[in-house]
């Protein structure tokens, strides 16, 4: 944490705030997320800081609980995509040959279909539940992680210390987890931030289209969907999630940028 620039510290602080609000939502939120507390689309007041939504529920409460759902789904999907993508990517790099060929070509194939279109095609026959959403987003996103971790691991795989480990008689699992993983971690962690933001945007888009988180559960994309009719009447309730998403994604980007700079300067430019 030494020598952390102010921008990165600010980013880390704001990101932490979002996560804390998500974790402690039931204690922070002033009302219940499904409770109707006023008229439709009341303007902001002392009782309702952000006003009320299309059914008269408190918008601040909906935003806090919505952040909880959105951040949870995005985190779980990112975790899945990283575990899967990194392990498969390292495996492809370490084994090489036809294993690498088969995995890389299959990955190219999935990446050649636009992510949103692929997700819509799959969701047309799947029940739309939170676990399925996490699975779909995580699997589709793991193709990007696969590509990066394979590229990073191919570089590390030819290092002398990896060869030394091989000559020592260590197995492939040791090479992947004890030699490659620790050395590939920093570029991957920087990528983690970007993939997390992508997952947030993705789940929000799906929810907005009505194919993501289902009501009455709140989430940021769903809040836009619920309140979109208000826009035409000049009621900006649907725009509030925009601020949340922009603030969160800029903060995470600031942290990720700093990590990327730090790793590239330490490792002599590798991982750019």
């Amino acid at each position, binding site marked *: 944490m030494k020598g952390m620039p102010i921008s990165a510290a600010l980013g880390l602080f704001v990101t932490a705030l979002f996560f804390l609000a998500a974790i402690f939502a039931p204690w922070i939120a002033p009302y219940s997320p499904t409770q109707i507390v006023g008229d439709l689309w009341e303007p902001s007041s002392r009782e309702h800081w952000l006003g009320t939504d299309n059914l008269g529920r408190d918008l601040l409460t909906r935003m806090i609980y919505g952040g909880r759902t959105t951040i949870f789904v995005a985190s779980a999907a990112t975790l899945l995509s990283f575990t899967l993508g990194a392990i498969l990517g390292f495996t492809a790099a370490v084994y090489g040959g036809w294993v690498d060929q088969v995995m890389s070509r299959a990955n*190219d*194939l*999935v990446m*050649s*279909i*636009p992510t*949103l*279109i*692929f997700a*819509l*095609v*799959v*969701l*047309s*026959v*799947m*029940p739309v539940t939170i676990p399925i959403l996490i699975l779909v987003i995580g699997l589709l996103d793991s193709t990007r992680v696969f590509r990066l971790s394979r590229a990073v691991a191919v570089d590390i795989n030819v290092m002398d210390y990896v060869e030394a480990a091989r000559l020592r008689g260590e197995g492939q699992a040791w090479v992947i987890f004890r030699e490659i993983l620790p050395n590939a971690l920093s570029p991957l962690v920087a990528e983690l931030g970007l993939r997390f*933001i992508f997952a947030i*945007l993705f789940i*929000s*888009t799906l929810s*907005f*289209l*009505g*194919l993501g988180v289902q009501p009455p559960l709140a989430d940021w*994309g769903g809040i*836009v969907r619920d309140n*979109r009719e208000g*826009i*035409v*009447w*000049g009621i*900006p309730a*649907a*725009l509030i*999630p*925009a601020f949340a*998403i*922009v603030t969160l*994604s*800029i903060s995470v*980007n600031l942290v990720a940028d700093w990590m990327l700079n730090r790793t590239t300067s330490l490792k002599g430019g590798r991982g750019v």
Partner: protein
Amino acid sequence: MMHPILTLLVQRIALSLLLLLAVSVVIFVGTEILPGDVARVILGQGAPEQAVENLRAQMGLDRPATVRYFEWLFNALQGDFGVALSNRRDIATAIGQRLGNTMFLAAVAAAFAVPLAIFLGLLAVRYQNRWPDRLISGVTLTAISLPEFLLGYVIMYVFAVQLGWFPSVSSVHGGMSFWQKLNAVALPAMVLTLVVLAHMMRMTRAAILNVMQSAYIETAELKGLRKLTLIFRHAMPNAIAPIVNVVMINLAYLVVGVVVIEVVFVYPGMGQYLVDHVSRRDVPVVQACGLIFATVYIGLNLVADLVSILTNPRLRHPK
């Protein structure tokens, strides 16, 4: 003996066709085989066994998957996508009109975005690390951080509701003149322009900056050329291949971004059609739309590759 560049082009096109075939398999498998039974999913868990059985027979699900796949593929190649489950209408006719609308919207957005992105990219290089560069980077970064649909509502709120310049709902129909249509798609086109502008401008800037580090640029600089002449006469020609590549990739992205924007502005295009039928679990329509979107996407990426092969002088004039 064929010209080596011709061989390269033919190879690249053949590879894309192969990829497209594989994609059609993935789309088919993704909708037909994944959770066991499409008929059951469409009718819901509580449906009587007889109804599921009937639907299965009607969709031809009792036949083996490979047979159904080839039947679907050959019909699709001849422009026949079957009928929609929800309203029994012919899918190809419905798509025909909507594809035209979508292409019109994408074309309008591209007509604004491409020149603007290249101009702003040049401007950012000219004033690198000074306030115009920082301003352009800041605005485009914010545009990237917003999901398309939210950017859509922000723009709708400002330009349609507060200022009242354009209609908030973009309905177009056959009887409208070109200018009326243009007015109707102004806002969605503006959103799409902003979305791709950010990516395109940043990549253009990077492509030119990359060329600007070459030795011959330094020579030109030391000759005392003005910065703009330098960029236009010396850097630009060598950056054209990467820029065209960037433009094509972003046009491919535009075709996908259209899906969400059409829903925001209730525009009668392919995206709206696809999303409507995903929630109705209308599998034949989803397959058809998925295949068309993937084809356009792969096609534009192919054009990007072909252009970068053709603009490479080392490949055009082999030793």
